[in-house]
């Protein structure tokens, strides 16, 4: 059962009944779900969790929705993989990868949508909607299909092909908005006010955001009920970043792990880095930016949770980094070549920033670190096109193959080469 109790304003602390609203009537601050931790204590144990399914629903007691409304396509409980080869490449002793590319629609957004759609059904909504640069739309369409709900998704008209098809295949009403990013924003804000739909990241955002805590829960459980020393997390709105930390803190409050002491590090693309830039300037007040980066999934110029992400960085003695488009592509390749995981651009941002954080000394070589890989590479093949291994093109004749191979090996052995592959 759920132990959700109320919505609470993150600024003034006023409480509201659990309803599809996202901001405080008094100060307009964002609302967050409050739980009855006293009632949870003793009922939510390591054993009760371990007895649950191998999905995020093993944490149903900690989620703000009634599990009978769940829409289950197998989201969550993804692998935590020890990454010795990548660790060596970036200069760390112990590195883990939380591989969230293997979710049903190949990104962590399946987690937030699982909770949002369950709560939307609980509220009695018949239509689900979102505005997205791809991953969120994919997750909403798939879960809505499974639930048999009507679905509307709004996307900019310049999205990567994989992300468009990855929504269209579930047969939603797909609205491609002709205009700038700001136009899409304006349209969707207005639409969300005029139609009685559950907009996952607007009117049900307080519930939606809670789904990201399951990444923190899983990492702690998979490490054998303890928290890592450092986390590196990609940031768009900054919600995922703050919620992973919240998950670790809640586990400690419930006595499931010791006090975490985890340092939280955020990763952004240089072409959209309002949070990292504010961190460097030593302020909690970010300046919104106009995004210009290949990391479209992280291209939020005015991050709703930027302020709270900056606070979490300060409180945990963590930090933030940013990566250029070039470094992002290198990050994608390094991750694939060392650990066998093909990530989308957000994963490239994470790996590139991890490398820079270790190089700068922000993360020490002996700090046990978890890097969060939140989306799969086939969604953004455009980003690496022309930057991956060139095939040997041959007719079906052994001698030609042998010649081509000898030539390739000769190239690889040339002074500039990095050795045979």
């Amino acid at each position, binding site marked *: 059962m759920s132990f959700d109790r109320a919505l609470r304003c993150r600024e003034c602390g006023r409480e509201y009944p659990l309803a599809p609203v996202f901001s405080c009537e008094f100060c307009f601050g964002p609302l967050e779900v409050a739980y009855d931790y006293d009632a949870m204590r003793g009922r939510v144990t390591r054993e009760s969790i371990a007895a649950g399914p191998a999905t995020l629903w093993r944490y149903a007691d900690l989620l703000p929705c009634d599990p009978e409304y769940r829409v289950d396509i197998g989201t969550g409980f993804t692998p935590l993989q020890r990454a010795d080869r990548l660790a060596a490449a970036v200069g760390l002793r112990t590195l883990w990868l939380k591989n969230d590319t293997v979710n049903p629609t190949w990104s962590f957004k399946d987690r937030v949508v699982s909770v949002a759609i369950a709560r939307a059904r609980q509220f009695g909504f018949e239509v689900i909607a979102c505005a997205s640069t791809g991953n969120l739309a994919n997750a909403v369409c798939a879960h809505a299909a499974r639930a048999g709900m009507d679905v509307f998704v709004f996307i900019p008209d310049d999205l990567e092909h994989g992300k468009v098809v990855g929504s269209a295949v579930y047969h939603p009403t797909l609205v491609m908005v002709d205009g700038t990013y700001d136009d899409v924003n304006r349209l969707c*804000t207005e639409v969300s006010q005029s139609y009685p739909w559950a907009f996952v990241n*607007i009117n049900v955002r307080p519930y939606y955001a809670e789904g990201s805590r399951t990444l923190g829960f899983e990492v702690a459980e998979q490490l054998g009920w303890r928290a890592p020393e450092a986390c590196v997390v990609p940031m768009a709105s900054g919600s995922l970043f703050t919620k992973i930390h919240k998950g670790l803190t809640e586990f400690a409050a419930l006595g499931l792990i010791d006090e975490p002491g985890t340092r939280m590090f955020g990763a952004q693309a240089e072409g959209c880095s309002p949070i990292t830039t504010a961190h460097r300037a030593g302020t909690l007040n970010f300046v919104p930016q106009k995004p210009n980066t290949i990391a479209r999934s992280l291209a939020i110029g005015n991050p709703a949770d930027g302020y709270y992400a900056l606070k979490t960085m300060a409180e945990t003695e963590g930090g933030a980094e940013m990566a250029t488009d070039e470094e992002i592509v290198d990050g994608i390749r390094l991750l694939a070549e060392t650990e066998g995981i093909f990530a989308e651009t957000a994963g490239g941002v994470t790996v590139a920033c991890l490398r820079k954080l270790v190089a700068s000394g922000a993360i020490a070589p002996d700090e046990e670190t978890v890097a969060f890989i939140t989306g799969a590479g086939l969604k953004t093949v455009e980003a690496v096109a022309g930057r991956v291994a060139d095939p040997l093109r041959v007719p079906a004749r052994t001698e030609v193959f042998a010649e081509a191979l000898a030539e390739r090996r000769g190239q690889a052995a040339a002074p500039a080469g990095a050795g045979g592959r």
Partner: protein
Amino acid sequence: MASRRVRFTFEPELIKEPVIYRIGHLFDVVTNIRMADVDETVGWVILELSGDPDEIERATAWAEQQGVRVDPLAGDVVEG
């Protein structure tokens, strides 16, 4: 009558301008500030604008012309 909740962001050189005061004079729109913060690098104000929808639109368009960034309250609505 309609109302719109927005976030105004001001670059440092605009912080001293009485943009919100002038909106109330130039347009038939009531402004109601709920939260704000200003430091050396940036200032922001979260406020509600009430009035005729077209008048609100004209008021925010004017603010943008002055160099203010105007966003819906939930930050960016489009997610990754």
